[in-house]
C-alpha cells in the first residue's frame, strides 16, 4: 500500500507545483496588463512535451541528466516534512540531509547539460554553481538561529516547537527571515537572479539542447523544486501545523517571489555574488548575533 501512497504523494506535489507555475505566469501576465494563459497551462505544456514524437540526445549522460535531476528533487521532497504530515520514512527530515540533497538536482542537470557540449549550457552551469556560492551560505546562516534556538537539527522538531502564532520563527527572528527571503529568490532562480536560465543571453541556459520528454522531466523538476524550496522556508520559519497551512504558507511565499520576479531586471553573475555578500550576509550575521544575545 505504501508504494501506491508514495506515488500518489509525488503526483500530488508535482501537480500542485505545476499549478503554482501556472499562477506565476498568470500573475506576471496581469502585472504586464495582459490576460495570460489559463492556470493549468503548464500541465498542458508537460503533456505536450511528453507527447513529442522523437527528440535528440547527445549521449547517455545527456539523457540521464534530467532523470538524476528529478530523482534529486523528489528524494529531497520525501525528506522534507510537509506541515506535520511526515513523509513515508519514519525518520523525520534533518536539515543537513535536505540541504545536501537539494544539490543533487542541479548537479544532475549540470552533468546532462555539460554532455551536450553546447557553450551556452556550460556557461549557464558555471553561473548556476557560482551563484550557489552566494545564496546557499546566506540560506544556511539564516535558518541556523531557528534551529539553534530550538536546540535541534531536525526540521520536524522545529515545526512542532513552533505551535502557536507568537512562536513562529519569522516573528522571533525577523532579520534572518528577511535574509532567508533574499536567499530564496536566488535559490529559485527567479528574475533578479535568473542568471543561469537567462533566455535572452544564453538561450535558456542548460535547457538549450533539451527538447521533448527531457524538457518535460525538467519542467517537473522545476515544479517540485518550487514546492520543496518554499516549503523548506515555510517549515523552518512558520512551522505549519497541518498540510493545508503548509500549502497556504508556500503559496504566500511563492506569491512574494513572483511579484519580485515580475518587475526586476537581471543581475550579472559577479554583481549577484557581490550583492549576496553585501546586505543579505549582514542581515544573516545580525540574525546570529540576535540568537547569541537573546539566549
Amino acid at each position, binding site marked *: 500500500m505504501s508504494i501506491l501512497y508514495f506515488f500518489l504523494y509525488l503526483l500530488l506535489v508535482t501537480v500542485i507545483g505545476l499549478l503554482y507555475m501556472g499562477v506565476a505566469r498568470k500573475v506576471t*501576465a496581469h502585472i504586464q*496588463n495582459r490576460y495570460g494563459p489559463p492556470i493549468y*497551462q503548464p500541465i*498542458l*505544456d508537460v503533456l*505536450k512535451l511528453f507527447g513529442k*514524437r522523437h527528440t535528440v540526445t547527445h549521449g547517455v549522460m545527456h539523457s540521464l541528466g534530467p532523470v538524476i535531476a528529478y530523482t534529486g528533487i523528489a528524494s529531497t521532497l520525501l525528506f522534507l516534512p510537509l506541515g506535520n504530515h511526515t513523509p513515508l520514512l519514519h525518520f523525520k527530515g534533518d536539515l543537513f540531509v535536505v540541504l545536501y540533497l537539494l544539490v543533487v538536482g542541479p548537479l544532475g542537470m549540470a552533468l546532462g547539460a555539460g554532455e551536450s557540449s553546447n557553450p551556452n549550457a556550460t556557461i549557464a552551469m558555471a553561473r548556476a554553481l557560482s551563484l550557489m556560492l552566494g545564496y546557499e551560505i546566506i540560506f544556511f546562516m539564516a535558518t541556523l538561529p531557528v534551529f539553534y534556538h530550538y536546540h535541534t537539527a531536525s526540521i520536524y522538531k522545529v515545526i512542532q516547537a513552533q505551535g502557536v502564532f507568537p512562536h513562529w520563527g519569522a516573528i522571533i527572528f525577523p532579520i534572518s527571515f528577511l535574509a532567508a527571503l533574499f536567499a530564496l529568490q536566488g535559490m529559485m532562480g527567479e528574475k533578479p537572479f535568473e542568471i543561469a536560465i537567462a533566455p535572452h543571453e544564453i*538561450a535558456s541556459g542548460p535547457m538549450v539542447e533539451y*527538447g521533448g520528454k527531457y524538457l518535460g522531466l525538467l519542467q517537473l523538476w522545476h515544479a517540485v523544486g518550487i514546492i520543496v524550496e518554499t516549503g523548506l522556508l515555510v517549515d523552518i520559519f512558520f512551522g505549519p501545523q497541518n498540510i493545508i497551512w503548509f500549502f497556504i504558507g508556500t503559496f504566500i511565499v511563492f506569491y512574494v517571489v513572483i511579484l519580485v520576479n515580475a518587475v526586476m531586471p537581471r543581475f550579472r553573475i559577479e554583481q549577484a555574488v557581490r550583492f549576496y555578500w553585501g546586505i543579505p550576509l549582514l542581515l544573516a550575521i545580525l540574525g546570529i548575533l540576535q540568537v547569541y544575545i537573546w539566549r
Partner: protein
Amino acid sequence: MKLFNFSQSRSLWMMHFCTGCGAMEMPPTMTSRFDMERFGIIPMATPRQSDLLLITGYLTIKTLKRVVRAYEQMPTPRYVLGFGSCTINGGMYWDSYNVIKKLELYIPVDIYINGCMPRPEAIIDAFLKLREMIAKGEANAWKKYIENYEWYKKNQSEVFDVEKWSIKNEK
C-alpha cells in the same frame, strides 16, 4: 492521441527566429496589446524546445540555409507558418537574384497568411486556425518533409550547397 493533439494545440512554443520584415508584427502580438500567450504560445529560445517556426517575410538564400538547419533541429511534430506574399510567390522581390520565390519547395508550410506583413489580428487568426487543425489532427505538413525528404533536398541543393550545410546525423 486525442489528448496529445489537444495538449499540442493548446501549447504551441514558437521559435524566436524572425527572418524578414514581418518580425515587427510579432512584438505587438506577444505583448499586452494582442497577447498570444493566452493561447499558450510563448517564444522559446532554441529550436530544440519549440514546435512552431514562423517565416515572417522574404527569405534570402543566406537565411534559407539557417532556416533549414533550424527546422531540422526541431523535434517532430513541428509546424511552419508563412507570413506575407513573399513566402507564396516571392512578392515584390519576384525578380531578385537572392530571394527564394516559393517557400513550399524548401520546407513544408502549414498555413500561409497573405498581406504584405499581416497585422497582429491576422496572425492571431492564423494561430487559432492552426490550433483547430492540430486538434483535428490535420496539420501534418511535417510528415511530408520526412516522407519525400529527397525531393526537398534536391530543391534545396539547386539553391545552395546542401552537402556542406546539412547535419550528418545517424537518423
